């Protein structure tokens, strides 16, 4: 799966978690760009991604992510 293909699915997850169909994310999007992106929503994002891509994250690695691009790279490394 390419970076773009993963990003497409990740964007859909973001739209569902934040209940916003117009939300557009990029590699540089981070928690300061989305008002509701707090620790609980971060958990919701990670749980949704684990389900969507059928993988498991390590708590330390998801806590160290700086932006969406790093999240997508982490997913790619596990597929």
């Amino acid at each position, binding site marked *: 799966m390419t970076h773009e293909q993963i990003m497409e699915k990740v964007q859909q997850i973001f739209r569902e978690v934040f209940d916003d169909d117009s939300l557009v994310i990029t590699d540089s999007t981070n928690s300061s760009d989305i008002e509701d992106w707090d620790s*609980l929503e971060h*958990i919701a994002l*990670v*749980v949704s991604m684990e389900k969507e891509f059928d993988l*498991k*994250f*390590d*708590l330390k690695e*998801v806590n160290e992510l700086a932006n969406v691009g790093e999240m997508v790279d982490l997913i790619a490394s596990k597929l």
Partner: protein
Amino acid sequence: MNEYRYEDIRIGHKESFTVTLTEEMMASFKDITKDVNPLHNDEEYARSKGHRGRVAFGMLTASFLSTLAGVYLPGKRSLIHEVKIKFAKPVYIGDTLTVEGIVEEKNDTYSLLMVKVTIRNGDGDKVCRAKMQIGVDS
């Protein structure tokens, strides 16, 4: 109080308890919330709306989800993250409710339990359905 650890709990784990809704609970809830809506506080008004008596505050019924998580499933190590609830039927003073939770999913990364909750009255009718996401502290 139960003291389950995340590893102790398997998908399908069930816990339940019963509670009878009393006049005193209604009065305490009204004192705390200042919800003076007549459906909950005025017998005549409630009957005029087709009820057999005052309707219990929905959020009072919902408050037993706190007990389910904090005392039973998982108990001491509980941290409620999220609750989605539907109020399917009215609850009346004197009703004995059975609150049951079953673990539908777990998330190992964050030690989370996804619990499906059903609250039934004494006739076995579902009065509330809920989904809870509960963290289990280590």
